[in-house]
């Protein structure tokens, strides 16, 4: 008899309000370790809201439903507790933090997480060793490390820095919020290579994107279409191609047809 494995992330009938407006209107989604889920959808569908709710941003009011992560109520945790528990959000718009050195920040963040988990903190030698390993895996230059966090970074550099942070922090669940937006093809491949290098049986990804383009390089196990706050279609990677071919209007038509 095989053990029943509960999903890493279980979103059940999630309703979320932002500034008095209902944005998510009953989302259910299960993500298991090792899986890559793509969430696609038109602008305004609620994609980024989903990412922000998972990371714990203020101002997002959950009116119904639940989110379980590794069997715990994720919504009860503070953002830093979620981080320590292994949840990572790659921001659509990474924040510039003038005056804070990238390396210093990352070491402080990693050690805060380790401390929270009861693990020993890394000294600067151990930390630098880990940094070098990750840079090598991602084929990144160490030049980003010496600068202030995201300050004056190009769009591509900011996204690469998010992926680098993800690699360094080794989350269990990584949510990528439109990490592909605004990237040229080379930068896109670099981001995709980074994600692929981190794919592992114990790690799951939720990749939020507007375009199918990224999914040519990061091949998802499941594709979900989010429209008007609901998942209206789920399928395998071929769903992304259908969307690319027919556009989001196709979904709306199918919805209407289904409702009729």
């Amino acid at each position: 008899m095989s053990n029943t494995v509960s999903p890493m992330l279980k979103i059940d009938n999630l309703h979320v309000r932002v500034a008095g407006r209902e944005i998510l209107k009953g989302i259910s989604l299960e993500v298991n370790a090792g899986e890559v889920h793509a969430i696609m959808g038109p602008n305004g569908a609620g994609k980024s809201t989903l990412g922000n709710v998972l990371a714990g941003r203020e101002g997002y009011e959950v009116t119904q439903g639940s989110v379980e992560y590794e069997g715990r109520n994720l919504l009860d945790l503070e953002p830093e507790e979620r981080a320590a528990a292994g949840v990572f959000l790659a921001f659509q718009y990474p924040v510039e933090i003038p005056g804070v050195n990238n390396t210093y920040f990352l070491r402080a963040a990693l050690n805060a997480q380790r401390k929270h988990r009861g693990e020993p903190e890394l000294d600067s030698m151990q930390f630098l060793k880990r940094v070098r390993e990750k840079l090598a895996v991602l084929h990144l230059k160490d030049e980003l490390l010496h600068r202030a966090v995201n300050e004056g970074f190009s769009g591509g550099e900011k996204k690469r820095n998010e992926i680098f942070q993800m690699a360094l922090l080794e989350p269990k669940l990584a949510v990528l919020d439109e990490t592909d937006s605004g990237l040229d093809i080379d930068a896109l491949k670099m981001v995709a290579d980074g994600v692929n290098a981190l794919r592992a049986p114990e790690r799951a990804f939720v990749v939020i994107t507007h375009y199918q383009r990224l999914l040519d390089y990061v091949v998802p196990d499941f594709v979900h279409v989010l429209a008007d706050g609901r998942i209206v279609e789920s399928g395998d990677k071929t769903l992304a191609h259908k969307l690319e071919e027919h556009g989001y209007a196709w979904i709306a038509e199918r919805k209407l047809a289904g409702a009729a």
Partner: protein
Amino acid sequence: MASALLEALLDRQALAHAARPREPEWLAAARRVAAESLAREGLPGPRSESWKYTNLRALEQRTPVVGDAGALSRSIDSAIFSLPGFQGSRLVFVNGQWRKDLSHFVAEAGISISTLAAADPEQLEPWRVVLAQQHTDSAAAFARLNTALATDGAILRVEANAHVATPVHLVFIGAATERDIAWHLRALVELGAGASLRMIEHHVGIDANGVSQIGNLFANYALGRGAQLDLVQIQNGAAGATLIRRSECALAADATLTTHTLEIGAQLTRHDFDVDLAGDGARFVSRGVFALRGRQHADTHLDVRHAARNTISDVLWRGVADERARGVFHGAITVAAGADGADANLSNKNLLLSPNAEIDTQPVLEIYADEVKAAHGATVGQLDEQAMFYLRTRGLPPEAARHLLIGAFCATALSHVEPTELREHLAAMLDSRLPRTEAS
């Protein structure tokens, strides 16, 4: 305005004490005139534009005695003012009294250092204009008070073209006294043409709980043609102290004054910093930060006058106020008629860390010349919520994220302090005054 404070400060005994037998008659006369104008016009009240954010009413009921009779015998641990890696001359004043035992002179060609009290009339003669200067503006009441009563302080003179290698450390210590005191000191610093010097003005407090004093320091800096002065000001005065400082600087052609100011101590401080860019190509660079908490009140009035061609001023200040503290930054830049080619830049950004804290910033730009480049900006804001969230999603608890952001916000102002050891020392002092992370 009559006040108990002025009566106490200008009582007959104090005035008699200030009249030194060896003093030249012009100085004695200047003291009398200053005391008279002060007695007549009093301290600036709330209607004085330049004091509108700093109310002196609380001071006016105090009756301090001038000077501390026990200053020479108070035990002072030199660790409280030592600076890492510092090897230079040091003049130490405790409650306004020079302490020979704590001071130290490094002999070096090209610089002479002495105390004002020990100066001969001939040594005072070159300073006659500034020592006898009468401040006509009643807002400069403490300058009048200083003119009337300061009998000691420091005189530094650097000869033309002398590049002084050893820095000079002026230390002003506030120590607990049996009763409320006031002290008045003067610093006179002159750099000849082409000379260079590094100096540190350092205010320190000990016995945090027993210090009730009004300290009054008036400093004059005269920079000759092409001279360079690097001045670091550390104001970490005693918790209960009131510190009133005035720095008046005159720069000849191509002279450069670089200042870094850290304001973290004392209960109430007011610093008037006047810079006269009098010669073509003179340059003033000011970096500063104040970090206040509790009921601290710090008021910095920077007044820069571009009076010659191609003069440069570059001012960048940061301010942080927590709890019920109040910060005031007044940055005035005047470009006089004919001062073409002037380049003035002033930036003052502030963070309020508590709903009960207050920061008032006033950038003032007055331009009477034609070809001028001038930019100024001042903001008062709160911590960036986006940045806080970003740091927290990476695992930093809110207190740590806050500390990191505030530290980075302030650090820009001190990033160019030389040497590195001093920069790190200032950074650590600043850091110790910022909201702490719990148990780290």
